[in-house]
């Protein structure tokens, strides 16, 4: 569905995207994850024909984004970071305008708009002006606008930014239902780690304009991050020495009454550490294991925390 080769984009002296090669198959749900300024949105703007790449090539929905942008535009849906519907317009008017743009007949437009309005809970809002809607309502409308022509490929640029957790969950419920109904391929950017983790079947991590990891969330976590363990103990420095000797352990931290570390396999590590501690007569209290998050993956790849990058 998407095939890019060495895609780059420079804005003057700034290299926003530094060579992205990516293949996305029909039906995939892919999250592009990365800190602000990583090049996610720029990549998406190239793939949706909004801006031309500086070098490299991209084929989207079977057509080259530079040579035949019109063919690409006909086949994709796009929900940008802003609001697609004009604020001076009424909700229903914009949905029907969008349907007319993609050449739906009046009858088809009525059916499609009707079902989207119902699916995205916009029923009470169709006669309202877009500027009168709340942020969450407007975001649902944006998604409806992107789906009016039932595109085979949908791009979502930070679809749930600014939404309350409950609204995010609702929005995703709608998106996933539409995906099942229309057999859509979905590419989304997000800086919400949990969103990428729970929704996407494949996570592409982008940093400083390059793809630094590309796999399922669970295999990224086990391959790149490993589990975290924590022990409470009366003699942290002695216990830390034991933990350090475990194969594959790293980032061993001994603090007051506690030892934390990253290990390959949490439960196995706990068993081994507790056994060695018992043999050496070191008092060890409770032990905990934590599954890694995508932030741990990002941290191990870049040495920086995605959570902190985005909080800046």
């Amino acid at each position: 569905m998407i095939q890019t080769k060495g895609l780059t984009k420079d804005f003057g002296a700034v290299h926003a995207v530094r060579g992205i090669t990516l293949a996305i198959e029909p039906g995939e749900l892919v999250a592009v994850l990365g800190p602000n300024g990583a090049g996610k949105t720029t990549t998406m703007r190239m793939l949706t024909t909004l801006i031309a790449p500086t070098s490299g090539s991209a084929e989207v929905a079977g057509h080259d984004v530079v040579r035949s942008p019109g063919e690409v535009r006909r086949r994709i849906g796009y929900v940008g970071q802003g609001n697609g519907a004009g604020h001076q317009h009424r909700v229903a008017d914009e949905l029907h305008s969008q349907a007319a743009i993609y050449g739906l007949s009046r009858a088809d437009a009525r059916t499609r708009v009707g079902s989207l309005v119902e699916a995205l809970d916009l029923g009470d809002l169709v006669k309202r002006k877009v500027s009168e809607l709340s942020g969450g309502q407007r975001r649902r409308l944006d998604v409806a606008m992107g789906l009016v022509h039932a595109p085979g490929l949908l791009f979502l640029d930070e679809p749930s930014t600014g939404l309350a957790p409950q609204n995010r969950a609702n929005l995703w419920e709608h998106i996933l239902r539409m995906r099942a109904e229309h057999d859509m391929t979905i590419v989304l950017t997000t800086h919400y780690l949990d969103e990428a983790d729970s929704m996407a079947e494949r996570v592409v991590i982008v940093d400083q304009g390059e793809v630094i990891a590309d796999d399922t969330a669970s295999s990224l976590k086990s391959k790149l991050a490993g589990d975290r363990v924590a022990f409470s103990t009366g003699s942290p420095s002695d216990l830390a020495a034991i933990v350090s000797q475990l194969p594959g352990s790293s980032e061993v931290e001994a603090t007051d009454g506690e030892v934390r570390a990253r290990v390959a396999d949490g439960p196995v590590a706990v068993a081994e550490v507790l056994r060695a501690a018992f043999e050496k007569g070191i008092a060890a209290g409770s032990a905990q294991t934590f599954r890694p998050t995508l932030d741990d993956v990002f941290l191990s790849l870049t040495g920086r925390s995605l959570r902190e990058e985005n909080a800046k």
Partner: protein
Amino acid sequence: MTTLARDTRIVFVRELKPMIRDPFSVVFGLVQPLVFLALFGPLLSGSVGSAGPVTAGGTVWQWFVPSILVMTALFGTSAVGSNLLYEFQTGAHERMLVTPLSRSSLLIGRSLKEMVPLAGQAVLIVAVMVPFGFDLYPAGALLGLALLAVFGVGLGSLSYALAIAVRKNEWMFWLVQQTLLFPLMILSGMLLPLESGPGWMQAASRANPLAYVVDAERALFAGDVASLDALWGAVAAGATAAIGLFVGIRAMLRSAD
């Protein structure tokens, strides 16, 4: 060409919808020029007296109503770029750029739509002024409205082009628009006759396309359909439209960057 016509129609209809849905703003827009006419007209006839170009064709209204029509076109269409700026901010324009609509239609459809409120205002002004002694020459008036529409498309396009050019420094839009608007208006002889002004102002007005449009509207609304003034006005309006569309479409093609 057929896709361009289809796309232009879609953009045109989309642009009209907020107007149709919100008749109050339309009525307000229609009444505005009448208020100006009612307040400025009496002052004008008082200050220019009974002799001179203003009252040469009969009442002051014969001279001033065409002025108000051109002024309405000038103020209305030169401001429309701000609507597009707003759609840049919200993301609506970006959404349109990702659709298969041709880039040219995004400009042409918007500019053509500006004719609709303009025609409404013009018809209302003329209708209201006829009972006050404004002589209506139907053929000339219709041609006058058509000429105004062509001019409005050109100026609207230029306003959109300006909006696209300054989209990253939005405050520039009103600065440039206001800076250009007043010299153009005064040097067109729209509000006060230039005949009584200094020679350099008269010379400057010869380079102002708006001055030709104003003269043409006065000639047409006086029934002088086959006059040289009307011809030059048509040339000025046509040139404004051609240049406006050319510049506007070029700007629109680059509006995604």
